[in-house]
């Protein structure tokens, strides 16, 4: 399943790639991209694990960039 989100307030390119890397390591994720320019994050992962993945991704984002708000796109 593919889910996309908007990361409002994303303002550091390095953090974007850190988020991409960390979320990509989560269990059940097959691919992640964080596009710094469009501030879009797309997560592709196993269907049944998606809710866990989203919750974990939110935590990662809070840790790396506390000012970013993750919204459903």
């Amino acid at each position: 399943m593919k889910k996309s989100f908007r990361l409002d307030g994303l303002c550091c390119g390095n953090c974007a790639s850190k988020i991409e890397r960390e979320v990509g390591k989560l269990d059940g994720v097959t691919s992640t991209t964080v596009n710094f320019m469009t501030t879009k994050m797309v997560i592709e992962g196993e269907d049944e694990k998606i809710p866990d993945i989203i919750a974990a991704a939110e935590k990662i984002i809070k840790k790396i960039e506390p000012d970013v708000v993750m919204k459903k796109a």
Partner: protein
Amino acid sequence: MKKRLRRILLGGILFALSVIFHIENEWLRLAAFLISYIIVGGDVVYKAIRNIFRGNVFDENFLMSIASIGAFFVGEFPEGVAVMLFYQVGELFQDYAVNQSRKSISNLMDIRPDYANVKRGEEIVTLDPDDVKIGDIIVIKAGERIPLDGIVLEGNSMIDTIALTGESVPREVYPGSNILSGCININGLVTAEVTKEYSESTVSKILDLVENASSKKSKSEQFITKFARFYTPIVVIIAAILAIVPPLVIEGATFSDWIYRALSFLVVSCPCALVISIPLSFFGGIGGASKKGILVKGSNYLEALASTEIVVFDKTGTLTKGVFNVQEIHEVGISKEELLEFAVYAESYSSHPISSSLKRFYQEEINNERISGVEEVAGHGVIATVDGKVVMAGNGKLMEKMNIPYNNEEIAGTVVHVAVDNIYGGYILIADEIKEDAAEAIHGLKAADIKQTVMLTGDSRNVGEKVARELGLDRAYTELLPGDKVDKLEEIMKEKSINGKLCFVGDGINDAPVLARADIGIAMGGLGSDAAIEAADIVIMTDEPSKIAAAIKISKKTKIIANQNIIFAIGVKALILALSAMGYASMWAAVFADVGVAVIAILNAFRALNIKNI
């Protein structure tokens, strides 16, 4: 942003005053600088502390706080404030530049329709395009964006497709024509039936494609991401060593001097300039290309395109229009008009494409009463009685069979020989037309340093070689079966150098295997053709082959910009690191190497968006 600017100004003024009016009392002096420091950089220190508690230690805020607070500790108060001030100004510029480029990119992709006017009975309701279903009737007023793909039921209008194709000449639509979402209805009122749901419509496909293009990363992006991962820790470790080892080992070296140098290292250790500017360059290039009606499906393709050495074309539908038209009428003994008329009448009952080409050229209404006794000779042509005369129209074989001497020189194209009452009357040449900009396309490729241009076609040798000659292609392989094309392409691929790339250009309809096999597959005429969009790496929305040269130029420009940024950012950082290790560079220079370089690199990346001169 304004609040930040005001804070920076206030802190800056206080800082300037503290520097100008030299305060004798050391404690008062410290207090003055400390206050301006807190005004300018309090938020950075706060963020640094907060992020440490969240387990995120080595971020920019932390590095800057350590560097500037460290400066205070070694007694360089003005330096501490100045570093923070400069950093904040740089960040402000950087955010501004990023916002600006985000804005121009979203402007570029501003083809998303906001609403659809849907007819429900007699009423018209405004709906989100997402909620409209196939078969719904939509109404598009003048000036409105077409929300979904559909077929016109009522109304004539002109449609502006520039956002999708880069083509500024409007297209005419009338009942029965297909309309594509994302285009703008210029004048008339159009009623249409929706044929595709929003998520499947042209506009969402294009947006998806462009927005997700950056997920396929180019080699330079991969290099930079890797580089950034090792760069920061290494620089931080060197800084730590620099702060401790030399004062212990070298005689006369002081801790305060070496700690100052180490702090400069920390300032330079942020990789942001690189991490932002390289993807931004490619994104800019992809955005710029899409404005020209060239969709690039990934940064990797845009990068690869810059090292194209060989461009292989399919002929029909790519270099030629794929429409057969009367090119030449070569009369013998009778007039051109008579020759054409006889041919059209004789062929009028045939369903062969030749017949429709003739009819299209003749334009006048055909009077069936003038024809009698039509006989088709399979594989040869037709024999019919027109106005009481026996007319034979067909290929050379027909003339030979009927023992009629005819002009049998080799002619490229399909030839219809005509004989009237057993006397040869001449021939009509029907051929596929070369696209207007095809020659320009080949010329443009040569100008862009493409080493070889090759054509593959299933057409006859005569026709293929004639087209290749006229366009100035280097080589043409003719009479290929669909399966042969892949083999030929593999053969040609062996001729490129190790890092060189081969591009195949086709129409995406029957050459999907060849498109897939080439390093870069380019499909033409993507507008409204899902097959083409699916099969290719790069899609040219219009039918113009000249856009290929434009795409290569954009890719070369983008690659140059990305390389400039890599060299510039790494170079400046390395230089400042070396200078500050030796004690020649102040912390000011270090801050420049961090944010200053980022701003300059972003501004440079911005150029990739500009495609006016391509």
